[in-house]
């Protein structure tokens, strides 16, 4: 599904990712863990095509196609979803309007009929119930005045509505209490399936107790320095990231 080869990325002229190799097959859940400043969010942003993240070397194939040549919205329409670490507030745009626009944009791209207001409403009712989100949040402006937990739930709602093939969760667990964490995990687990893949970016192990990964990678200083099974996360929780401190020059 996703094949990252020797990926080098610079931001403001500074090299952040220094040769990443990562393969994710359909149905798999991978976790990328690492200390702050290791390049985790850069990896998430470059996969979603954010401006300012310059690929200087390497390649990313998504479903066998060159991902890096696609615009952000094309990637979304092709099934890539980024759950933001800091979901953005958009005053004046109602959450439902936003979701409907997004869903219909993606459906158009896929050659499917757009949903009308009634069909959309029906879909929303079902998803909202699943995720334990109050109707009130749908009427409000996107993320405006939402608590940290509500923002993350809103990300999960968007993910549930857009049904991506590859979801990238960037520190989705940060700032969440245990209930919100479970909701997020439920949302993610509901989406797991043989057709989809997940990339979970996190600093801590605790989300991985609820979303059990198939593989865990340690990212440090722009490189994947170790890969292993789910037990690697527990080991990191115990020992911390100190062993991945910068090598002496």
């Amino acid at each position, binding site marked *: 599904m996703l094949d990252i080869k020797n990926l080098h990325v610079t931001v403001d002229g500074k090299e952040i990712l220094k040769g990443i190799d990562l393969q994710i097959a359909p149905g798999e859940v991978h976790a990328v863990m690492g200390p702050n400043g290791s390049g985790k969010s850069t990896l998430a942003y470059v996969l979603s095509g954010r401006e300012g993240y310059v690929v200087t070397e390497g390649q990313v194939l998504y479903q066998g196609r060159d991902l890096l040549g696609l615009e*952000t*919205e094309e990637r979304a329409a092709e099934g890539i979803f980024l759950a933001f670490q800091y979901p*953005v*507030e958009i*005053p*004046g*745009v109602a959450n439902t309007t936003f979701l409907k626009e997004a*869903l219909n944009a993606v459906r158009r791209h896929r050659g499917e009929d757009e949903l009308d207001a009634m069909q959309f409403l029906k879909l929303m009712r079902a998803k909202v119930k699943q995720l334990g989100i109050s109707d009130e949040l749908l009427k409000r402006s996107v993320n405006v005045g939402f608590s940290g937990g509500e923002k993350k739930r809103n990300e999960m709602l968007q993910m549930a509505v857009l049904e991506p093939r590859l979801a990238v969760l960037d520190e989705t667990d940060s700032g969440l209490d245990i209930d919100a964490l479970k909701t997020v995990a439920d949302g993610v687990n509901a989406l797991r399936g043989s057709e989809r893949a997940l990339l979970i970016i996190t600093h801590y192990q605790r989300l991985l107790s609820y979303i059990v990964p198939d593989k865990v990678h340690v990212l440090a200083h722009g490189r994947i320095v170790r890969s292993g099974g789910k037990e690697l996360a527990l080991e990191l929780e115990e020992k911390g990231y100190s062993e991945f401190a910068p090598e002496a020059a």
Partner: protein
Amino acid sequence: MTAAPAQRFVEQFRARKAALPGAALPWLAERREAGIGRFAELGLPTPRVESWKYTSLRPLEKLAFATPNGEAVSVDRLPSLLPAGAGEHRLVFVNGHFRADLSALGNLPDGARLGSLAALLESDPEFLAENLGRLGDACEQPLLALNAALMDDGLVLHLGRGVDWTTPIEVIHIAAAVERPLAYHPRNLILLEPGSHAVLIEHHVSLGVGVSFANTASEVVLGEGAVLHHYKMQAEGPEAFHFATLHGEIGRNAHYDAFGMSLGARLSRNEISLRLAGEGAGCHLNGAYMIRGQQHCDNTTVIEHLVPNTSCREVFKGVLDDQSRAVFQGRIVVRPGAQKSDGHQLSKAMLLSERAEIDAKPELEIYADDVKCSHGATAGDLDHNALFYLRSRGLPERRARNLLVEAFLSEAVEAISAEDLCPAFLASIADWLSTRHAGDRS
């Protein structure tokens, strides 16, 4: 520099004064003479005058304007901001002149008077002698002085004590192109006696492409407890010059609620002066604008708190594209003794092009010590984080940009209290965006 163009208006006045409405009324003739005299002294405003620092009338000076000459203009279709069937009271002015044949005054409530100034100068000059020209200082405002001299027609709305007129009154001003550039000087008088209530909609459009110079002056007097909702849509053509000077006096517990949308004209200026003259008086003075190309849009306002316990809320929001330029000059003055004045003012501009410019000059002038006043001005590009967020959910870039612009402006529109009007104002935003050139900011 300004002598020549100003002189042309003076000469025009000399030639036309005998034919102007109410020419036989000595009091009016006297005021017209005073107006032209003052205008001749002041000339057209130049950037040397502080309040005209950011708005140049240079393009106007190059043109020789004729006066509308009763040209037969046929109007096939009248635009309306109201949903079909909601417009019971409609007045149409073409090039500043009332057109009874296009208007439908409908059934007026008892105690209400609605009609054309020129007609009223014939039928009830005493009323006008007493009430016209009470507000505003033509000694300071050249365009108001010019209007005082050349005022030819306009709207008169007079509500007697307690008249509660809830159905909206729509006034459509059509600038109809003829071969020559036209100048006209409408004067509106809106007088609400204590306890009365009205909803007034002004809709300014152009018919055909031609140069027009509308120099409008309005006087609004609200008696105790009176409420006026005043909405304005200025959607004139790309060759229009639109100047609207408004003076309002708001009495005890009266409320003036205004919203204006400017999207037309090559050069437009709303110059609004409101006096909160009775305790408990309040105003909402809000506006929005969307401009592009070489358009220039100026909103200059002065709100004076004269007595204790008055309040004002003022929000202007605008979107600028291409090389357009906007000016916001907002002054809130709290006079000595006007304690517990409560005033808030905000100007927000969104610049979609690096060549667009906003000059925002918020000013507070406070001479009382127990007041709550604030002001703010922001100018910026689209929020890039929001844009990325929308695109990351699949919205095409153009749609994402438009959605953000719409969101920015619709906040201003949705605050208006006449729900009937929201769709038309929101539609104007959508129209404007859909006709934006595809080459977005590079």
